[in-house]
């Protein structure tokens, strides 16, 4: 049977790829709003640079390692540079769209997964160390994991583990890595336990909105067809996010008699994370429950985390780890073949074994991610200082790592004016002695 390309399916997968790409700047806004002003650009850059770096890696070899011909643990390099990945569909992945469309859709997933981790290490990680970490992590953790769960012949896929859009591959793996990285990197200077001082809450709300929007591509796009299954996934995604947001508002109200904006944004993201593995396997009613349960669990997890000495700065483990684990397990509870005949029945549909398979997938993901994240950080530490110096941390990484500032508005320095480099009256010119004659004339 020759595979037939469907125009509708292809259009939907392409749009979904663009939607998932938009989640990267969305995440940059979400994270960037939550940090202090002096680290805003650094935080934005962690997300955006992941999109660049990981995409290059994906084209060169990442896609081949994850999805190329190979064994149950890892793909080979025969598709390096996307060689042989073209217009013809690959029946094992998406039988009705060009193989290349599937590859680019998956590229966005790889990029955002690395960006997710950055939230745990903001405000203190040297940027060069981050870039190396991102490259190593996506190659050593993400690509093999994508192989296990989604790759043709991957061992978790063969075992029947359900992960519709990346609950384990994306969220549990990023959440686990975040926790390990935060622990190994240590706490920020002068941050009281659980200190979170958002410098721009509207950024965070806008970011959450963009993430929600992009998540329709993330989850419904994972149907890889413009089909009733995509509709199911989109409706479930929306229902779970809404339920989690509403639940978070109630919890906030109960605890502090105030409904917080950061809480509403967090709630929505938590619901989206939890429904990710389940989106194409459960009913909308189950989605409401999954969203609400995830919001409650993560709410408690964040309260507990704030009492520890772990400086997972933006609670990546609570948001993505806890919600991801819960979502993966609840998929094994609520999944039913009446929604998706291509899926499996879960506990409530009389198949308790599925819950065990889900737990195994979660455990394997956490083990792989934790051990290799630790290994990468130990190696990097041996090669270079990975933490910003105390002085740099106090000044803020925007100035020290990027030589830029997020905001100049209203700065008195704007009135004083700025001069191009070389045209300044230098008071101290210790570093550039060779320019002294010119400086002298200017000063004179």
């Amino acid at each position, binding site marked *: 049977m020759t595979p037939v390309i469907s125009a509708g399916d292809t259009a939907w997968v392409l749009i979904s790829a663009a939607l998932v790409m938009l989640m990267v700047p969305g995440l940059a806004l979400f994270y960037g709003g939550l940090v202090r002003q002096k680290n805003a650009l650094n935080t934005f850059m962690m997300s955006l640079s992941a999109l660049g770096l990981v995409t290059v890696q994906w084209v060169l070899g990442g896609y081949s390692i994850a999805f190329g011909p190979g064994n149950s643990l890892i793909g080979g390099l025969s598709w390096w540079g996307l060689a042989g990945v073209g217009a013809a569909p690959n029946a094992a992945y998406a039988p009705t769209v060009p193989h290349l469309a599937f590859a680019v859709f998956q590229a966005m997933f790889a990029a955002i997964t690395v960006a997710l981790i950055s939230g745990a290490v903001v405000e203190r990680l040297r940027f060069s160390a981050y870039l190396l970490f991102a490259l190593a992590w996506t190659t050593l953790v993400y690509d093999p994991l994508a192989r296990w769960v989604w790759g043709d012949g991957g061992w978790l896929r063969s075992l029947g583990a359900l992960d519709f859009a990346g609950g384990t591959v994306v969220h549990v793996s990023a959440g686990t890595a975040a926790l390990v990285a935060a622990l190994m990197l240590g706490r920020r200077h002068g941050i009281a336990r659980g*200190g*979170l*001082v958002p410098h721009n809450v509207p950024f965070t709300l806008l970011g959450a909105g963009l993430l929600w929007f992009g998540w329709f591509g993330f989850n419904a796009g994972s149907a890889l067809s413009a089909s009733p299954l995509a509709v199911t996934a989109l409706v479930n995604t929306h229902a779970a996010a809404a339920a989690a947001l509403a639940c978070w508002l109630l919890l*906030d109200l109960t605890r502090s008699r105030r409904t*917080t904006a950061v809480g509403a944004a967090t709630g929505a993201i938590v619901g989206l994370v939890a429904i990710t593995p389940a989106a194409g396997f459960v009913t909308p009613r189950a989605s409401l429950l999954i969203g609400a349960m995830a919001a409650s669990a993560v709410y408690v997890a964040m309260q*507990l985390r*704030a009492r520890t000495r772990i400086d997972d700065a933006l*609670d990546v483990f609570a948001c993505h780890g806890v919600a991801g684990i819960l979502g993966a397990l609840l998929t094994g509870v609520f999944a039913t073949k009446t929604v998706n005949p291509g899926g499996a029945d879960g506990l409530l549909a009389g198949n308790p074994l599925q819950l065990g398979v889900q737990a195994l997938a979660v455990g394997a993901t956490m083990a792989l991610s934790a051990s290799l994240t630790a290994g990468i950080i130990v190696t990097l530490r041996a090669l270079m200082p990975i933490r910003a110096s105390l002085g740099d941390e106090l000044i803020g990484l925007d100035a020290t790592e990027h030589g830029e500032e997020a905001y100049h508005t209203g700065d008195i320095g704007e009135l004083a004016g700025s001069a191009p480099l070389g045209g300044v009256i230098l008071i101290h010119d210790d570093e550039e002695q060779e320019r002294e004659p010119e400086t002298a004339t200017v000063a004179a």
Partner: protein
Amino acid sequence: MKLITAVIRPDRLREVKEALFRVGVTGMTLSRVSGHGGEREIVEHYRGSSLVLEFREKVKIEAAVSEPFVEPTIRAIVSAARTGEVGDGKIFVQDLDRVIRIRTGESDGAALTPVTADVVQARARQAQVEEVAS
């Protein structure tokens, strides 16, 4: 001559400004400042962490006035800025050695006498007329 510095609640600025204008004090400099008297701290909640804001937003008014205006200025600020709650602010009064108006070089009392742009323009026009006549 005194420099009168008042730190007040931002929400009383409108009333204080009107009261000062009413007693004839129209020259002043404003700045947004943070400060702490004895008022209760504000607590903000972000996810798992609660944050105590120890310093409150205030507005600082600085006005240099000649002796006859000192008491009316103080009375105007007190009456307009007072709510009776902790956190209404303070007024500091300091002696001034010299005051110079940059535009004219006038000093002290002459520099402090309020002049409006209309008056200055009228004077300039008058001077022009006299120059032509002579």
